[in-house]
């Protein structure tokens, strides 16, 4: 892990307004080092917008976001601060897997020697020289995750990284998240796959209508409900 940064994300009363509409309202959340925190919520609840704001893509209209104890805005090497995987299709169409990662490493000031290591870590070494346009969704997810791991960042944000992964990929991802947390990194994952939240998450935060309506440890969140799903549906007011 890079340097002596203390991993973590601090979101303090953040509001985000896009095209005249308030997408996120006074959201506060703390993602600590050594934990995998899952961000849950319905489609359009504001999860991806919040992740994009943490990555510095979307400006906040109120509140503050700090990553590893400092504002991310205009960090000289953003990918060394926060590894991000937000879309499974963020590639130049003419690139191979290895060229995409080399481009990413060069643009971020990261040693290109890490490219081989992250390709091996995500299991794409044999497909590295193939054009990304021929990759399956699962392979594109793995390549995106490789990009997030490239900077050896203490904090990672992943937006629905399990979509399209086969059962081997899901098991691999579970192991990767556990390793990242064991390494002291803070990981924030948006997902709808509750079984994986139960298996690999330490905490959950629920976003509903742009607000964070719950933020607790997984066991504490489930306490008093039959399952994680029931706890979630109860939290967003779909069942009583």
């Amino acid at each position, binding site marked *: 892990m890079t340097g002596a940064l203390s991993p973590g994300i601090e979101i303090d009363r953040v509001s985000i307004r896009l095209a005249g509409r308030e997408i996120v309202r006074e959201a506060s959340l703390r993602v600590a080092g050594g934990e995998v925190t899952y961000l849950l919520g319905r489609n359009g609840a504001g999860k991806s917008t919040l992740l*994009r704001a943490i*990555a*510095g*893509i979307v400006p906040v209209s109120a509140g503050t976001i700090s990553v590893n104890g400092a504002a991310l*805005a*205009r*960090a*000289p090497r*953003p*990918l060394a601060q926060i590894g*991000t995987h*937000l*879309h*499974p*299709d*963020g*590639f*130049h*169409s*003419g*690139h*191979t897997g290895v*060229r995409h990662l*080399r*481009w*990413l490493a*060069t*643009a*971020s*000031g990261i040693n290109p020697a890490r490219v081989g290591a992250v390709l091996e870590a995500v299991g794409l070494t044999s497909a590295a020289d193939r*054009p990304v346009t021929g990759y399956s969704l699962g392979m594109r997810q793995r390549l995106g995750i490789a*990009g997030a791991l490239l900077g050896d960042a203490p904090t990672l944000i992943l937006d629905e990284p399990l979509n399209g992964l086969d059962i081997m990929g899901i098991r691999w991802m579970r192991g990767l998240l556990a390793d990242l947390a064991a390494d002291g990194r803070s990981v924030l994952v948006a997902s709808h796959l509750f079984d994986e939240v139960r298996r690999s998450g330490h905490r959950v935060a629920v976003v509903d209508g742009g607000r964070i309506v719950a933020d607790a440890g997984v066991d504490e969140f489930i306490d008093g409900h039959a399952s994680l799903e029931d706890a979630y549906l109860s939290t967003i007011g779909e069942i009583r």
Partner: protein
Amino acid sequence: MPAALGQLRRAVNAERVRTGGRRSVLLGVVLPGAVLLPLVVTVVVATVSEHFSKVSGDVEVVPVGTTNSVYWILTFTVTVWCCVAAYTQATADRGDLGDLGRILFPRSWTGVAARWVFYGVGAAVCTVTLAALTMIALPTFYPTVYGDVDLLSADGLRFVLTIPVYAARPWEFPSAWPRWWGIRRRRWRSCSAGCTSWRTRSR
């Protein structure tokens, strides 16, 4: 400022990596369109002119001066580089790549400036090299029509000095301008909205 320049340097290097590989736009478009095409056209025109100049008849071939000798280089090479620059700028933020670009280069001008530097320098070096080689080769191989062409004449040296400026000028980078204009317009709107709000409050 040093951080901004460091990001610009990385963005130029990233553009170099982006355009590499087997499906490189430099190999697929620049080499045939900006290098081979103007050279072939120049050679064909020179060969035909030289041939007709030696055939006795009604057709008169006027000797070509230095100023007209690199016409096809200036036409094709600069235009093709310009199209390549416009294409790479237009596809830089296509689809989901836009988010990645904003993470890598938080300043909106970094990517645009990097592409201008990379393709501008490429166009300048390519055009001036081809022009110089053409002004050396034409009088050697086609002395009847192109015997007056001279790289070291005033016109030749003027070309060598001005062609790089012509090839790399920022207004040869058309697709960048709508984005710049968009940024400026948003800032102007914010500024005018702020002034209006201040004036309203102060009344």
